[in-house]
């Protein structure tokens, strides 16, 4: 999970690079197809990251959270 920020960042950067390369053109069909497939996969990753940021809203007093974490501790 700690690498997730890298994942989005890197995925987004790689995706941009792929699109730029494809837009420049001049590549073989095989390579184009491969890049397209990679780009499409990266796009999915990025979109998944957006969804993954949605979640629970906790709002607690310090003591309550301390209590909660205390009881959870193994």
């Amino acid at each position: 999970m700690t690498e997730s920020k890298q994942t989005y960042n890197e995925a987004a950067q790689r995706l941009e690079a792929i699109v730029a390369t494809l837009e420049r053109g001049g590549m073989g069909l095989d390579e184009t197809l491969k890049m397209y497939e990679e780009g499409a996969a990266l796009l999915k990753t990025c979109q998944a990251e957006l969804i993954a940021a949605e979640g629970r809203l906790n709002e607690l007093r310090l003591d309550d959270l301390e209590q909660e974490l205390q009881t959870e501790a193994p």
Partner: protein
Amino acid sequence: MTGRGEVTTGPLPVGQFVTMVKRALTSEPLFQRQAIKGEVSQWKSYASGHTYFTLRDNDGQMSAVIWKGRCAIHPSIKEGTEVVVTANVDVYVKRGNIQLIVERIEPVNALGAMEEAKRLLVERLRNEGELDRPRTRPPVIPKHIAIITGAGSAALADMQKLIENRWPGLRRTVIGVLVQGQRASEEIVRALALTRRLADPVVAAQRGEPPVDLVIVGRGGGSPEDLWAFNLEPVIRSIIASPVPVVSAVGHESDLLVSDLVADVRASTPSNAIERTVPVRAELEQWLDELDERLAHATRRTFGDARQRLIGLHARLKVAPLAGINMERRSMLSLQSRLNRATESKLANERTRLASIEASLHTIHPKRVLERGYAMTQTKDGTVVTNTKMLELGQEFSLHFVDGSAEAAVTQIHTMEEEQ
């Protein structure tokens, strides 16, 4: 706190107990490197080089020691001087005395004790290199933000509203703390400790949520005293120790707190902290849609180009043999026309030459001469007479004119030589 649960087998020897107390006190970060203000009393420097005194104010007092050569002692310090010390709490086990081990002592000047403590802290942090330490960049998309701020405060409401505008439903844990007063720094330190736990992947997995990957700590504007917790060393040390990036979001734009100097991101206000760390989801979505479109378009174009090239090649392939034949034909035609042109010009030249020969033939024909009034003389045997020596007196000869001839005889001969 933790000692209560310990299993003991019987009464503790007091020395052991005091040692436990010592351990508990010296391991508490709040009691280490704390800046403390008070008045000097019972100031005593011994031959050993150590200095002992009591730091006191109206509400309490504590013994303090400055070990020999440990820090510079301002010459103005004497009985009754107001000072700020930076000290660690220690227990002298032999006597069970709690005392301050002074690392730094400064008389309070016009700046005021707090400002002085802040200045000292900043200086110390600078010397330790904490001000230039490498900062952790906040994630592009925070998956779990922890916000440490005043419970129910206006600053919190502002932040919540702004987050909902930018990224509705963004996962966050708000930890409500006291942000001013005596207990503020302690609560902020505890809250930061909780965020460390929430950032632990194991704890996060137990709670069924992603680990905290960004901490925002702050409060709205107030008087310098109100904001002071963010200048206190325990808070500062906790921020530095945080494994996840910390955003310092305290007060108004003009307030500069020590927390601003050490945090990974300095936000001018709580709202600014949100603006700087929470992206606008709709913008990201739009950007991804654009990339999606560009990706598909670029790929389609490459394939379209390839297809177009193929169609072009096919068409050229179909006409290629014809093109060969046509070329042959064209070159033959051209050869032919060149041949024709060459022949024609030769013929024309010949014609011209013939005409000119004809013309000259025409002019030199004897008849043309006769036409102009000359006559041709011929002897009887047909010889053309060209000079007088061919004739004799009495000899008959013929004179030919253009339209006929006449017979004549020589009656006299004159030569050119005679005349001359």
